[in-house]
């Protein structure tokens, strides 16, 4: 095997490991304080999840957003894939994004500020 091939394999392996760590690190369930709902890049609703006592839903651009005490998720989407529904509850490091309908659920205001810098 050529030496450059070995170097490529090592570089790609390190990238895989690094990205794997990033993915795992962002996949925690930090229940944030505030959920912001975006449609087309505009803020549609800002909800303090700590004040939510009963589960309620909100229709945004063909999607249905479900707020429950401490949590927010995409309950339903009109697109064929429904990837955002499968993403489950949003957390501070893991926003829920619906690309076809351009709807986004972002959690902010929790202890860790990893994503807030990007979201700001």
């Amino acid at each position: 095997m050529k030496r450059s091939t070995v170097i490529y394999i090592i570089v790609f392996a390190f990238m895989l490991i690094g990205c794997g760590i990033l993915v795992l690190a962002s996949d925690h369930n930090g229940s944030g304080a505030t959920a912001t709902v975006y449609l087309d890049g505009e803020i549609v609703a800002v909800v303090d999840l700590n004040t939510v006592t009963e589960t309620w839903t909100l229709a945004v651009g063909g999607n249905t957003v479900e707020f429950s005490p401490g949590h927010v998720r995409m309950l339903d989407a009109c697109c064929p894939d429904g990837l955002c529904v499968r993403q489950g509850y949003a957390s501070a490091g893991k926003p829920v994004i619906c690309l076809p309908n351009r709807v986004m659920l972002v959690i902010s205001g929790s202890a860790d500020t990893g994503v807030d810098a990007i979201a700001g």
Partner: protein
Amino acid sequence: MKRIHPNRLTQMALLAAIALGVWYLESLLPPFTAVPGVKPGLANCLTLYALYTLGRKEAAGVLTVRVLLAAVLAGGMGSFLYSAAGGLLCLLVMLCVKLPPQQMWVTSVFGAIAHNAGQLTVAALLMRTAVVFVYLPHLLIAAILAGTLTGLTAQFAYFRLHKHTKEG
């Protein structure tokens, strides 16, 4: 403008047709993960194969025909923007980093990374937010794995088939 030899033109048309078929079959598969944009990208095997057997312009032609026909046949404007940006960046990077045939899979990985970066940029522009870049690590992993898979596929095909299909 130099006329394309009918032999080459036929090969290009054949590769573009196969690429379109592969692309359509792949679009029928259920999504692999909840992260959008994670897919094998098998149609890129054909672009790679065209790049190594026919040449740069021919590979660009095969890709352009495939992306345009795919948009006309199946996708809407939205998916066309994604596949056009991804495909174009992937092609540009593969043209610049065209390694020897034994390292075709490396070229493919670089192309796949460029493809996913392009799609993520389109997503950021359409959504008007940088939040989508949280998917970057997911998509890099997907690009390395999928790029290796499609690259090795094209590489094996090249070494098995190309000997017999050299222009006669």
